[in-house]
């Protein structure tokens, strides 16, 4: 009975996965440097930041919203974390501060959208500027850098051979998958995005849900800031410019619909990996960065076009 349903819900991520595998196949034919364990781990590691932000973005997009502020929140959370470390806070506390600041910014987004009834686009557009300004203010515009070995391990260390950051990313995805597929909250996210009015009239706590969604999105941007700061050994107030667009792209390539109600974190992970593999492959091949931008754009448009085609055929 559930086979059909299962096929429908997994076909999309698998379809995207097929694109990823094919892309990898082509690149590995063209260059011997791609299909090596170190390089694949390298790609995974490079994907972590976008992928972690994109999880939150996927939640937001499924709920029929958008979050433009993640890049700025990332910068703000990063400098708060960095300053906490410089102030001598213990590592876990400093990380908590960074993630906490991100979550707080996200919660403010949520409150503006629910209580203030602002469209998500406007609320997060405002937050985009506020968080960026806050990051610049907090640092006087200068990067905050130089941290201890243990903090740098987060992004650069390895568990066995797997980079710690990649493990973190996989944990985040496993958790998000579980939340979206197996919890009440996850069901609510789809219901709110699919039909907010119907969800409300069915007793779904729509407001609380949205606040939680934007809060998580901000928190995940904060988590991405931890990885980025550790990776660069520096927190820049101008970090994360246009990261929101990368995250939206990953979610959309992965099958999330900006109309809401549709999307999956597995799809998003594959979407983020496609972007990472494309950039890595084009670098290995020595293709100009201008061409790379064209490619990413083509992939986004093609993914969405195909998705629409797929849905039409099904009808």
């Amino acid at each position, binding site marked *: 009975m559930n086979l059909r349903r299962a096929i429908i819900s997994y*076909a999309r991520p698998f*379809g995207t996965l*097929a*694109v990823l595998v*094919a*892309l990898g196949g*082509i*690149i590995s034919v*063209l*260059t011997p*440097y791609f299909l*090596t364990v*170190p*390089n694949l781990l*390298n790609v995974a*590691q*490079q994907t972590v*930041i976008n992928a972690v932000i994109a999880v939150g973005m996927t939640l937001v997009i499924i709920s029929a919203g958008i979050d433009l502020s993640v890049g700025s929140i990332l910068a703000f959370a990063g400098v708060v974390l960095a300053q906490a470390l410089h102030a001598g806070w213990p590592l876990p506390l400093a990380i908590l501060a960074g993630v906490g600041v991100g979550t707080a910014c996200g919660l403010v987004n949520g409150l503006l959208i629910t209580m203030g009834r602002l469209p998500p686009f406007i609320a997060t557009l405002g937050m985009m500027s506020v968080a960026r300004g806050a990051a610049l203010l907090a640092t*006087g*515009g*200068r*990067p905050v*850098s*130089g941290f201890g070995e243990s903090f*740098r391990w987060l992004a*650069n260390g390895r568990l066995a051979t797997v980079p710690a950051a990649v493990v973190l990313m996989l944990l985040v995805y496993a958790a998000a998958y579980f939340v979206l597929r197996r919890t009440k909250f996850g069901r609510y996210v789809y219901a709110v995005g699919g039909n907010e009015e119907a969800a409300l009239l069915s007793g779904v706590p729509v407001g609380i849900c949205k606040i939680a969604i934007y809060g998580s999105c901000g928190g995940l941007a904060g988590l991405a800031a931890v990885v*980025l700061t550790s*990776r*660069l*050994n*520096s927190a*820049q107030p*101008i*970090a994360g*410019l*246009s990261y929101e667009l990368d995250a939206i792209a990953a979610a959309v390539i992965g099958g999330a619909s900006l109309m809401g109600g549709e999307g999956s974190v597995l799809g998003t992970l594959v979407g983020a990996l496609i972007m990472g593999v494309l*950039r*890595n*492959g*084009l*670098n*290995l*091949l*020595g*293709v*100009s*960065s*201008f*061409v790379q*931008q064209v*490619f990413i754009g*083509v*992939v986004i448009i*093609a993914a969405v076009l*195909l*998705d629409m*085609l*797929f849905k039409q*055929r099904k009808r």
Partner: protein
Amino acid sequence: MNSFFSRFFVVALAIGLIAGCGRRVADSGAGRPVVGLVVKTLNNPFFIDMERGAEEAARSRGIVLLVQAAEREVDVERQMQIAENLIQRKVSVLIIAPSGSREIVPVILKANRAGIPVIIVDTRVDAAELESAGGRIATFIGSDNYEGGRLAGQFLVERMGSRARLAVLEGIPGHETSDARLRGFREALAPYPEMMVVASQPANWERDQGYNVCQNILQAHPDVNALFAASDLMALGATEAIAAAGLTRKITVVGFDAIDEARQAVRRGAMAGTVAQNPVRMGAVGVEWATRILGGETPPPTVAVPIELVK
């Protein structure tokens, strides 16, 4: 299932494109040493010049040069990714113009670990940071930014008769290049108390910000009669703001980098001067040293590329 077919169609298209772009480089690389050059961005004429110089040098020496850059000059994370990818590509030497003087350190460590020599060009690496992290670079090739800043300052002192109300457009705060230029500039002004800096604000190396920040400064300080910008892009933005305010030639503008457009502005009189770095030369020297390192030579810690004032 239809979607699978259409997907593969798109992928096929991608194959075509990638193959078209990639084949040339991949094929011609056989047997010859490959050098990677990572600049800050390729939409800044300065780095386009550097790329040109490097490519000419590479061609004459028979090495393969891969030039890559982030879309945005400030995107340190993206630059890091590109450098990582080139390390995976196993280039023989990596030449980098760092987007961030501290943020580049982890990349240098990775290259060190992979046994790839790193040549830094244009922007210095934060020395303390590099040392504490235990990283090492083969050499730094660059203009003496401090010296350039001093040249600009001295020029303005002469030009303004030791008396002026000055505005300064800074690069990205905390950026070594910007800091060095400004240090040199202020040093040159120090003996002249009548040379008053009334406003000094960052315009982040960008032309449109140069325009906006200059416009704002003119609002706040209408008596400004000289302006120094730590890069030509910012200076050119400023000259447009100055022209819009009808003050062309009334404000003496000095820039830095001597890109083509700035040289023209100097000829037109919209700018009084610009400090000429020689990015073409810088690129060429970078590639030259890369080959010499491959030949077993050890470069000096710093290779200076001459600097001069164009007026």
